[in-house]
């Protein structure tokens, strides 16, 4: 019998429970592990051009990541790419083995300049590419 570490949620028997939903932790399962949290602001103009900023992670592989944007009152997960009658409205994050690239593009014709802040977490988990 192999050794393992398991921590059950309140009300569940760690000795018999097999549903991972009822465990807080189990050494049978990998976990998402983040090591870097941060934010970066992209200044952009509503002119159809692509505006970017990069953050180096330097992991040598493409990692799991999560990014949110703060857009008005609320923050939410990206990407957000919508094409409507008014035009394009794109907010994206891309990863390669070295960097995260934060990209904004909008062509709704106002010509107005804005800034938007991305809030990211970079994980050590290797996507295996």
């Amino acid at each position, binding site marked *: 019998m192999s050794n393992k570490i398991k921590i059950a949620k309140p009300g569940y028997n760690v000795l018999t429970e097999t549903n991972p939903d009822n465990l807080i932790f189990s*050494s049978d399962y990998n976990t998402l592990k983040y090591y870097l949290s941060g934010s970066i602001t992209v200044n952009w103009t509503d002119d159809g051009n692509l505006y970017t900023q990069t953050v180096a992670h330097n992991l040598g592989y493409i990692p799991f990541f999560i990014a*949110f944007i703060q857009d008005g009152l*609320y*923050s*939410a997960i990206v990407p957000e790419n919508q094409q409507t009658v008014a035009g394009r*409205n794109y907010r994206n994050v891309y990863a*390669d083995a070295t960097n995260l690239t934060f990209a904004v593009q909008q062509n709704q014709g106002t010509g107005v300049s804005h800034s938007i802040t991305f809030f990211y977490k970079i994980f050590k*988990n290797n996507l295996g590419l």
Partner: protein
Amino acid sequence: MAKNVIRVALPGYDALDDTNLDHFALYTDEDNILIKEKERGQSSITSGNSVDIAHNLGYVPLFFVFVNLTSISANAWALVGLGSILSSLYFAGGDTSNIVIGNLTGGTLTFKYFIFYDNQVGSSAVTITESQNVFKVGKSGINVATSKDPNDYIFHSDLNSLKILYQGKTTINFNSGSADYSFAHNSPLGSTSVIICFAQFPDGKLTQVAWYGTPSNSAKSYSNLQGIDGKAFDSMYFDETNIYIHNVGVVTAYNVIFIWYVLEASI
């Protein structure tokens, strides 16, 4: 003096010798932080309404919201984003007090949410009431004897860490003008669970697959944004068996590599 560490290797790996973090459930040599769940729940929202799910953390936490796409099937779910600025039919956003979920469709929809203590936008001191006996690992410089702030910890036995049940990879060849594609996600649960998906386009850059929005929210290659190519596909949804992708237009066939994580937490 060597730093004290805790390493919990996955089955088949040697905790003493292995250095690949993907072979560990817990690896505290550095601040490799496990996300820590605050609460999960569901809300049935009638058409034209929104609901505030109070978290009161003082910052915007990491959160996921999924919508039950009953117009597709009883077990079809998709990640939900903001989109309210473009009048998306449903949306989810967070502020320092609430997660707000809205339904602008013509019918009632069920949403499921997962809120974590991990701060995503901003920060504020948070205190939890700990169990009498706990197992916890603090970040570098933290006094575990005194801190009760979840954001000070790599791991805390009072707080669920989402477990990765399956990590998959497949290549989809988009090769027709407009078509639906699907592939098995291999969740061991046999029921729909939380799935986070990424896509690597031919230009080598990878993006998270877009949340399911209406108007259509698509995943676009970085080269697409640069005007180099037109590679893009619609966002995804999933059920208890498959991940589904719709591609509205393919001129020249190309491959996209999909990587997905099935996380514990049945939806």
